[in-house]
């Protein structure tokens, strides 16, 4: 009786595990999952400023936690996620932004992507320089 009820209505293909069906979908899922790294890091950084506001002992506790092997491992996966995100973000950018023109010619997508990556490298170097030479 149950099977009879089930057979009513049009056939619907199951969507379970749909993203494993095609390499393109897998790539999409990897890209979307990079948001987990962004979310995780936002939470870590939020706790950082929270502990900072609670004084030196609290901050040192946070810093000690950041030195634990588990935290290092976590941040290595965050780093991987961030790199995937930076790479894919600028790959998609030509498709999501309005068309750009220069000298009557449309700026090719590859130029926009490469410019984004180049700016990322410069921003990373500047961030590193500030971390290394900032004077409190």
């Amino acid at each position, binding site marked *: 009786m149950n099977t009879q009820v089930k057979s009513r209505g049009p056939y619907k293909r199951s*969507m379970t595990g*749909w*993203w494993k069906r095609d390499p393109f979908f897998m790539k999409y*899922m990897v890209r*979307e*999952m990079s*948001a*987990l*790294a*962004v*979310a995780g*890091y*936002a*939470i*870590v*950084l*939020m706790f*950082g*400023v*929270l502990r*900072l*506001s609670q004084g*030196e002992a609290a*901050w*040192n506790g946070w*810093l000690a936690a*950041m*030195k634990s092997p588990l*935290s*290092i491992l*976590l*941040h*290595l996966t*965050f*780093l991987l996620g*961030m*790199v995937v*995100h*930076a790479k894919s*973000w*600028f790959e998609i950018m030509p498709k999501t932004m309005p068309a750009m023109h220069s000298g009557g010619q449309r700026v090719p997508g590859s130029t926009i992507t490469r410019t*984004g990556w180049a*700016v*990322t490298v410069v*921003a*990373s170097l500047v*961030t*590193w320089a500030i*971390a*290394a030479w*900032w*004077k*409190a």
Partner: protein
Amino acid sequence: MNRITPSNAPIFWLLFGAGGVLSALFGSALVFITGIAGPLGIGLSADALSYQRVLGFAQNFIGKGFLLACIAFFAWHAAHRLLCTVHDFGIHKTVFVKSIFYGCAMVITLVAASSLLSVGF
């Protein structure tokens, strides 16, 4: 008769986009500095993440703004993107599900903002 229904979606897209750009530009370097190089002392001095130094950075107007922008926009970016991704796994964007994701981003933003305000200028 055409009626345009006002939508709050552009607000979330804007936050998603801002966080997307910011995390693409600075995310990798920040994770490496605060999560790997700083704690392990690779290429940075031992006091790179000392209380006095980080406090000074958080009290600086630009440093404070940068930290808040990173934490808040990263959170809103991730909340929106993960909200769209759980939809792909069959969890649909009901008001309840949206409230959970955007609510988390809001809490992270408020905690970061109040902490950064309380360290002073």
